[in-house]
């Protein structure tokens, strides 16, 4: 089932500031998590991933933090740019004996203000 609620949260940040997007997940069996970015009219694109045996992973300008105790995931974007404006989704993956199942959070719309 779904992990979180039914509305699309929005986050507005000034260009150059850092952004933090949060996500709650519900399945303690999930062992792999991904953040996706979806720009208008396009499909979601991979940003960064993290496995459940880690609590932090860094990429270029992005960092993902995983807190398994409270089932919380966050995406931090440093020095936010206008091109970062998009809808961001977290996804949790449960490895099943017959395959894998990805469940997406509701998404957060990030608006970068000039």
């Amino acid at each position, binding site marked *: 089932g779904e992990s979180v609620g039914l509305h699309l949260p929005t986050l507005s940040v000034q260009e150059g500031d850092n952004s933090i997007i949060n996500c709650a997940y519900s399945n303690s069996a999930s062992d792999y998590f991904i953040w996706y970015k979806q720009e208008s009219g396009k499909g*979601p694109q991979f940003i960064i991933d993290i496995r459940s045996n880690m609590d932090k992973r860094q990429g270029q300008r992005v960092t993902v933090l995983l807190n398994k105790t409270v089932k919380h995931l966050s995406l931090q974007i440093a020095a936010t740019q206008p091109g970062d404006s998009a809808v961001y989704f977290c996804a949790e993956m449960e490895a099943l004996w017959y395959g*894998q199942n990805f469940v997406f959070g509701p998404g957060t719309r990030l608006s970068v203000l000039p």
Partner: protein
Amino acid sequence: DTAVSQTPKYLVTQMGNDKSIKCEQNLGHDTMYWYKQDSKKFLKIMFSYNNKELIINETVPNRFSPKSPDKAHLNLHINSLELGDSAVYFCASSQTRGRLVGTGELFFGEGSRLTVL
């Protein structure tokens, strides 16, 4: 080369009609998916196929029938379209990996926006 391609990109049709959306991936992945994205941007899994076999079939009306002729293709046929079927449908693929060797991210197509009038 587009990794996951789906056609058509836009589809406008009348209630009661039957329509199909096609998807192809050239990544050599073994698993393909159909997701539905509603007007609030919520992404929900509909079906998943692994090597042409149906492995995930969420609570979706029987009017939706996926078909996978080979592991590079996953098509979606919808019968007797209803207003509530209006949404963007995304095809995706991934390579299934075991727990010990890592996991596979999803690669999405550009989406097919279906509008039912």
